[in-house]
């Protein structure tokens, strides 16, 4: 896979032609001009612009909170804008709701809201349009026929009577794309469509998106994965703080440049410098066994950041869960700070021993979304803020204030529900909650998933600070650059076993990847 990310010379940017498919200038398929929107006096959008041509894939970029989602909701009729105009095919339009936007050919597919798992594939495909019916009676036969046509346009053969929830993630995405096509979408907006797809599935999706582009569909592509943007998209628009910053050809941009524009400052190095670990071993594991984990032995020292990689299903997350007491250990020993922990230790005992886990699924495992920051932090610290079973409000305030200050959590107040915070700040709440227990070993599963670039750097810095303070951080990541960048040492797992160990300072992605696939040392 090669990428055209380097313009020959900065000066040549003006001469770089638009990508071929997007060359057809003329009226834009969809234009948002100078759109503004505020909620409770806070500007979510101010001077936002987006202009998408028919037959191009247009990336919409920005950090979390930059206003991308709000802009999408405005152009799809979810929100009515406070100011500015929407223009569809040269005509000014006002969408009274999602349905009106759909009728005008503007459809958005949301990452978490793509399908209804408990109904059939055919119904999911036809969800957005009138079901084929006569006098309120659905015709299942013409429903299947029509759904089949839409799926065939995407080269998909998916059993139409199957429950959509039983499909693979890429098939679910295809079903939602087919649904958009069923409503005759001319402008298709995809929000992080590849978040749960494998490499091969991403290829498959890209093939489909390119063929839709060639048919003249305007595609808006929202993603945090810039590598994908550079591979797939023709032009890009960058937003920051609710405003339009720039729109240009992808071929005239570089990833570094895009990142610094998104962040609004030079991100510097994403990863802080490595530290020096002490000689003191905080956790050691020998012959550990459990579901998906086989004979794992390793040890880690105070001040060390140990990265764990491997394919999904390699047992990396399960290893963390066993260490945290969240999953059963069937044999082997775990020793924390010199003391061997009981085989049957569950989460409370492991926390007591000094091992805390920041889980992978933040929204479902890390925070209680509807509860306040204060309550979320207090949740993991009930033993330390209470005496004789009575919780002390003052002690909670102390740890909450300290956590919010140390981690620079951006919120109106500790009483703000966590669900209102950005992904990065939610992750900081999870960290604050666990750090208040003063763990000797902090386990983190995908510490930066769903977090924007600017906040990622902050999380890496926090990890390094913790290590400098003597904590051992063990972090699982599926992104190799991250694994190498944030760690001191990297273990790679394959089918439950440790297949390789590398010093991060001289690690190389090729080598790590070969360990991921269980190949012996290639050097």
């Amino acid at each position, binding site marked *: *896979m*090669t990428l055209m*990310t*380097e313009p020959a010379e900065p000066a040549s940017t003006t001469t770089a032609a638009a990508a071929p498919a997007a060359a057809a200038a003329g009226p834009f398929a969809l234009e948002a001009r100078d759109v503004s929107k505020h909620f409770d006096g806070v500007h979510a959008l101010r001077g936002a612009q987006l202009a998408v041509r028919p037959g191009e894939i247009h990336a919409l970029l920005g950090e979390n909170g930059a206003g991308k989602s709000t802009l999408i909701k405005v152009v799809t009729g*979810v929100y009515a804008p406070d100011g500015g105009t929407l223009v569809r095919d040269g005509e000014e339009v006002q969408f009274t*709701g*999602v349905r009106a936007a759909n009728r005008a050919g503007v459809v958005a597919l*949301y990452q978490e*809201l*793509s*399908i*209804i*798992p*408990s*109904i059939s594939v055919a*119904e999911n495909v036809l*969800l957005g349009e*009138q*079901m084929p*019916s006569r006098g*309120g*009676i*659905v015709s*299942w036969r013409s429903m299947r026929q029509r759904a089949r046509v839409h799926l065939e346009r995407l080269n998909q*053969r*998916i*059993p139409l009577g*199957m429950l959509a929830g*039983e*499909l*693979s993630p890429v098939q679910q995405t295809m079903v939602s794309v087919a*649904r958009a096509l069923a409503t005759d979408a001319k402008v298709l907006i995809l929000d992080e469509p590849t978040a*749960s797809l*494998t*490499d*091969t*599935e*991403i*290829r*498959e999706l890209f093939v489909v998106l390119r063929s839709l582009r060639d048919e003249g569909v305007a595609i808006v592509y929202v993603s945090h*994965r810039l*590598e994908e943007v550079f*591979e797939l998209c023709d032009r890009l628009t960058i937003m920051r703080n609710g405003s339009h910053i720039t729109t240009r050809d992808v071929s005239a941009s*570089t*990833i570094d440049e895009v990142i610094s524009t998104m962040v609004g400052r030079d*991100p510097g190095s*994403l990863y802080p410098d490595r530290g020096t670990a002490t000689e003191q071993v905080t956790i050691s594991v020998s012959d550990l066994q459990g579901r998906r984990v086989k004979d794992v032995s390793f040890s880690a020292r105070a001040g060390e950041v140990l990265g764990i*990689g491997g*394919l*999904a*299903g390699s047992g990396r997350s399960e290893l963390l869960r066993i260490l945290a007491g969240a999953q059963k250990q069937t044999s082997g020993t775990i020793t924390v700070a010199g003391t061997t922990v009981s085989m049957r230790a569950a989460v409370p005992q492991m926390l007591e021993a000094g091992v805390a886990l920041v889980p992978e699924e933040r929204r479902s495992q890390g925070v209680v979304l509807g509860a306040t920051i204060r309550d979320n932090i207090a949740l993991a610290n009930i033993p330390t803020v209470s005496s004789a079973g009575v919780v002390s409000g003052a002690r909670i305030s102390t740890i909450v204030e300290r956590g919010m200050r140390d981690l620079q959590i951006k919120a109106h107040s500790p009483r703000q529900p966590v669900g209102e915070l950005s992904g990065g700040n939610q992750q900081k709440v999870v960290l604050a909650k666990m750090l208040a227990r003063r763990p000797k070993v902090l386990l983190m599963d995908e510490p930066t998933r769903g977090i924007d670039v600017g906040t990622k750097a902050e999380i890496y810095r926090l990890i390094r600070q913790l290590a400098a303070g003597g904590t051992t951080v063990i972090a699982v*990541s*599926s*992104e*190799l*650059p991250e694994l190498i960048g944030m760690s001191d040492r990297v273990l790679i797992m394959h089918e439950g076993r440790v297949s390789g160990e590398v010093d991060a300072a001289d690690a190389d*992605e090729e080598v*790590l*990847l070969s360990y*991921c696939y269980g190949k012996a040392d290639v050097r």
Partner: protein
Amino acid sequence: MTATPTRNPGIEDTSAGVLAVPRRSLGQRALSGGTVLALVALVLFFFAMRPDVFLTFTNVRNILYQVSILAIIAVAQTVVMVVGDFDLSVAATSSLSGSVAGALLTAGQSVTVAVLAAVAVGLAIGLVNGLLVAYLNLSAFVATLASMTSIVGAAYLVTQGTTLFNFPAGFTQLGQGRLLNIPMPVYLAVLIALVAWAVLRFTTIGRSWYAIGGNVEVARLSGISVRRSRLLAFTVAGLVAGIGGILLAARLGSSSAVQGSDNLMFSVAAVFLGMTVIRSGAANLGGTVIGVAIIGVMSNGLNILGVNSYVQQVVTGIIIIAAVTLSSLKTRSR
């Protein structure tokens, strides 16, 4: 930072184009068939215990007669639970409808007037529940718990706290009359269940209900009018519950403010049992019918064996717990 190609070692590769049809283990199959097996097992058990009585025509007719009103209330509950809500007021609504019919009959009104008024009462209550839940955004639990309280009070007012009786034969025939030696309520229950099944399966509103129950946000963003659909679901439930109440009053030949109140818990139980029958785990009419049958067979069988009715109630609770545990095992193993 350099532009390295995206690699996602984090996610397993699957070969493109190969359709991943999930295989179901034997255990999962057994679980989803478990509720049906439980019904068969109950029937066989009672048949083995009392072969002379249990599967005779008279007794089977008895079971059908006994569960017919519950089946109608359970249909109402199914509709609401398909949408992802539930309705605690169904049994109370049926009592009030029956009471209104009874009060009008004892006041000398015609059967037609009494029946129409009782149906209207059910419809109106369903409409109010629907407005509270769909338009005022109250949780279904709070809204229907509150409306249940008021409805029970209204039923006491209508009956003046007594039991009304001495209804004209034209009315009691609805509940006690027989056609081909089968009681009328059985026909009506079958008819209502069939209509509801067809509505859920074959109509646009039925499919919208399933879509909303599956994922309300997707449904909303796909342009389904969620509010109107939920309103309609509660309205239908109220209407059906009202019809159930009329038949109950006709069958008993009397109306009181609390008659049929058992049907609330039993209807929820039947729908829960039914949800274990199908793969999607959604409320469904076929499953509800199986649920009703389990409850009916058990209560009849235990009666025949001479087990007292308090024990029956204890056993029913245990069966519900078992069913819900089974279905949670099923979703967990997904």
